[in-house]
């Protein structure tokens, strides 16, 4: 049986073969990428994956695709303006990361594919139902709220004496707040003490760190969103300095210096998102494209970080990891 990783490119190729793309039609299509954090430029890690997935479907920037990326850098108020900017530049379809972007795009009425950070889209009101989103937004949900429990489990597996977890999230992001609440409830049922560290702006991190200094947690769980993602380095540093095991929501964090991550495979998510964009380009309405769930979740452990912190993860945990960064 093919493994998931090997299958994906084949899958994309099959899609490309099954439906001849617009590459032949000679029409130039505009795709905008909107992020609430850093813009998803073609040379960023997510941008690269997206462009690659689109290329497999026959879209090449500069040939038949105009790709424009904008990021609000955590200033969510800018989002409507940025979407307008993208639209003015010709982008009729958007790829979005993060619930605020999708919500802003929905408000602007632009067909949008959200590939990460959507939370529970029905609960946030982004879509009507999973099978028939109904509006202008479709995409992939990483159902991170349930995964938080799994993340706590991994934290606990890393340090079995875990009692107290500090949770960092952006209180301005409704999806993230929901996720925090779900996580906190689950954590409490498992006998854990959650130390809520809501932040609203970069300066709040100092306060969060100070709180942790005062009341030291056993581990950190960072809920990913624009604000927290932009300030990840500070969290990494703080965790390293205080030898706190930490877990993040996607493998990119672990690869950039985070200790552990557990979340939907971004390659898969972006490949599916590219496929949805392709369908929208071909005339499908986003409201008719079912909102999907990821099928693959990656557990990544960064051994370099672990060693630098002087922590040794249990062998059983390492055995569970899909990827161990040496």
């Amino acid at each position, binding site marked *: *049986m*093919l*493994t*998931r990783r090997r*299958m994906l490119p*084949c*899958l994309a190729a*099959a*899609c490309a073969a*099954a439906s001849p793309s617009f590459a032949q039609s000679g029409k130039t299509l505009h795709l905008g990428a909107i992020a609430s954090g850093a813009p998803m430029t073609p040379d960023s890690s997510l941008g690269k994956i997206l462009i690659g997935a689109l290329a497999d479907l026959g879209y090449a920037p500069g040939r038949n695709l105009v790709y424009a990326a904008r990021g609000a850098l955590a200033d969510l108020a800018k989002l409507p303006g940025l979407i307008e900017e993208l639209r003015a530049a010709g982008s009729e379809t958007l790829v979005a990361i993060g619930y605020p972007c999708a919500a802003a795009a929905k408000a602007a009425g632009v067909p949008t594919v959200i590939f990460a950070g959507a939370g529970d889209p*029905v609960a946030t009101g982004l879509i009507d*139902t*999973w*099978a*028939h989103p109904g509006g202008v937004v479709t995409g992939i949900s990483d*159902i991170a709220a*349930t*995964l938080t*429990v*799994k993340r*706590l*489990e991994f934290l606990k597996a890393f340090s079995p004496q875990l009692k107290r977890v500090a949770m960092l999230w952006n209180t301005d992001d409704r999806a993230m707040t929901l996720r925090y609440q779900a996580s906190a409830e*689950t954590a409490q049922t*498992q006998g854990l003490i959650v130390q809520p560290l809501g932040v609203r702006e970069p300066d709040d991190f100092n306060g969060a760190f100070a709180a942790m200094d005062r009341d030291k947690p056993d581990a950190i769980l960072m809920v990913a969103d624009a604000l927290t993602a932009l300030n990840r380095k500070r969290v990494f540093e703080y965790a390293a300095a205080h030898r706190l095991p930490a877990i993040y929501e996607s493998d990119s964090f672990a690869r950039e210096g985070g200790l552990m991550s557990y979340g939907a495979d971004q390659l898969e998510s972006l490949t599916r998102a590219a496929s949805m964009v392709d*369908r929208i380009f071909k005339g499908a309405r986003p409201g*008719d*494209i*079912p*909102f*999907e*769930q990821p*099928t*693959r*979740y990656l557990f990544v452990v960064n051994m370099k970080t672990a060693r630098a912190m002087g922590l040794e993860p249990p062998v*059983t945990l390492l*055995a*569970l990891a*899909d990827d161990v960064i040496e």
Partner: protein
Amino acid sequence: MTLRDFIRPLGATSTPDGTALPHPAASRGAWRAPLATKLATALVGLVILVLVVNGAVNTWLSYDRAKSAALDVQQEKASSAAVRVGEFLAEIENQLGWTTGAEWRRTQPDQQRYDFVRLLRQVPAVTELSYLDGQGKEQLKVSRLEPDSIGSGRDFSKDPRFIRAVADKIWIGPIDFRRGSEPYMTIAMAHIGREPGVTVADVNLKLIWDVISAIRVGEKGYAFVVDGKGRLIAHPDLSLVLRDTDMSQLPQVRQALEDKASLEPAPGGQMMAAPRVGTAAIATAFEGGSVLTAYAVAPRTDWIVFVQMPLAEALASVYRSLLQTLALLGLGLLLALIVGSLLARRMAAPIRRLQRGAERLGAGDLSQRVDIHTGDEIETLADRFNQMAQRIKESHDTLEARVGARTQDLNEALRQQTATADVLKVISRSAFDLKSVLTTLIESAAGLCGAARGVVFLRDGEYMRIQAHSGIPQTFVDFLVAHPIRPGAETFTGRTLLTGEITHVPDVLADSEYDFGPAPQIGEFRAALVVPLARDGRIEGVFSLARPEPGAFSHREIEVVRTFADQAVIAIENVRLFEQVQARTKELAQTVDDLRTAQDRLIQSEKLASLGQLTAGIAHEIKNPLNFVNNFAALSRELIEELKDLLATLKIDDKTKSEIEGLAEMVEGNLAKVVQHGKRADSIVKNMLLHSRESSGEHRPVDLNATVEEAVNLAYHGARAERPGFNITLVKDLDPSVGDVDLYPQEFTRVLLNLISNGFYAATKRKAESRDAFEPTLTASTRNLGDRVEVKIRDNGTGIPPEVKDKMFNPFFTTKPAGEGTGLGLSLSYDIIVKQHGGAIDVATKPGEFTEFTIVIARGGPPR
């Protein structure tokens, strides 16, 4: 465009010599296919027929083959797709098999968990694994999304996943669409051994997509999977699956759902149960369009795997072969056309030559010969044609000679007939001019007999005198006039008169009896023919014809002359009858005229007599009372004078006196009016008496001019006496040759005076009306008309309107104001002129311009 239309221009332009001859048949109205066209059509048609039949058979066969092959292939594909779907499940089962060994139960929970985690890593489709012990209690659960749990003890002993798995070793649960979109399924597998536990796996069926997408069915075909209820499990378009699509609406799916139970497992099954394959069919795809579809039931499930391929793709080879056939057909057609037209042209050329030869022969060119050396039947045909042309030419020449002779005869007869007809025409046209009729007859007879001379004699008592002649010198005419012929043998005419028979002398010199002096010399003739003109046995005259040279007249010529002679007899008779009729008609007309005149006069005198009696009676009866009225009126006037004198002596008051005087004056005035009108009545009565008088005086020859002049002067002076300011220009235009005319002078003068005074009145009236430089004029003129004379009185007065003109001669009709005319003037004038003098009076007028009275009377006086 039919084939025929297509070929026609080709045939029409391909004449052998390259010129575009108009098709001969075209002149005959109907289009006929040239031979070349027919041959080409036949050839091309044959080729097309063969190609079409061949192509159709080929196409049909290849269609059948391709279809059955495609169906076979589809079934095979369906089978293999079902196997692959089965493998997907088998793989999961295989992996689960790791945990179903009898000894696995006894391993440490940590080890068991580790095995489960490994299993999850191995099988991406499995999202959750749990282990139920022999009592159906959950001992271990490992999940990708939820927290793992060890020894939770949840009771599944009543759950089908436990019961069914224990019973059947393996249980494949129904499809469950989580959150309404993600298809999940549970597989439970019983462990080996007594009181077996069960390993339960939650499988994300989205991952069958990988399997399904990898199945290639031709270029555009694909495979999809439905569950036992027809719900879509896997489809290359993931959205359809996520939307929980019900495929049972498709007929082929419905059919498959009905049929799957009865399907036999395919033979040659391997270890794994071979899929049951349904028959392939042509159906409509979910997204529309015709597809070739087949299905197979995936092993150990009730899932049905469908494969489908667009019909067009499946039958592509058929289309290709059809295209080939069509191309071949086109090529064959083209070749057949070229070869056919070339061949037809070669065949048709000599036939065309023959045809044109025949046409020229038909057009009259009998010397036409056709030169063909093709060495085949056509050459033989050409030879025969030439022979035929020769024969036709020979018989044509003979025929022409005969026709010439016959035509000459006919012409001769026609000439005679025409001449006869001409003669008859002349006779009928100038039936009463005997001389011209006879001249025409003799001229025609002479011409027809080839005789230079011809004479017609008619009987005049004992003698025969020349009446008409043709072609003889004047000296001979004079001779014949001077020597009328008597019956006797010395002249030919005389002989005929004697015998009543035709005298025919071929040579005058050879006739010993003949003795007519120098006639043959003067008349310059040698042969003679005399035909009698006989009516009722009596010879009225003869036709005498002569030729300057000797020779007998032919029988036909004699007949012609006899015919003409008969015509001459008829003409003579006609003239005689006509003259008789004319004379009689003249007599009758004279008689009728005399009768009519007498009748008119009788009526006139009757009328005059009765009118005269009437008026005289009336006048006489009125005369006496009128005298009383007049006389007593005059007397009463005198008495009034006396009354006035007496009144003057009376002593009465002035007022009464003046009233009485006034009354007396009025009575006197009235009496004066009585006297005046009484006198007028008297004059009317006098006039009436005049009317009644039949003839007052005697008629005698009178100088008309003098009478007219006298009347004009009298009228003028009378008018001046009556009206001192009267003036008019008088014009007298008197014809001196008129002389004396027998008339009643008194009455005639009276008429003239009447007309002239009317003219004066009209002219004066116009002058009074016009008030400009109008000069009233009256013209009196006379004219000698031989036995009649004419008198005209013309004025340039007011003229007479038409309605007056009709009635103006009626008695008592007048246009003058009351008291000025009696209305008897013109009535009286009419009576005098018409009745007394037997003449005529007429009027010409134009209102506003003139009036002219014309009197015409006989010079010799009134008819008796």
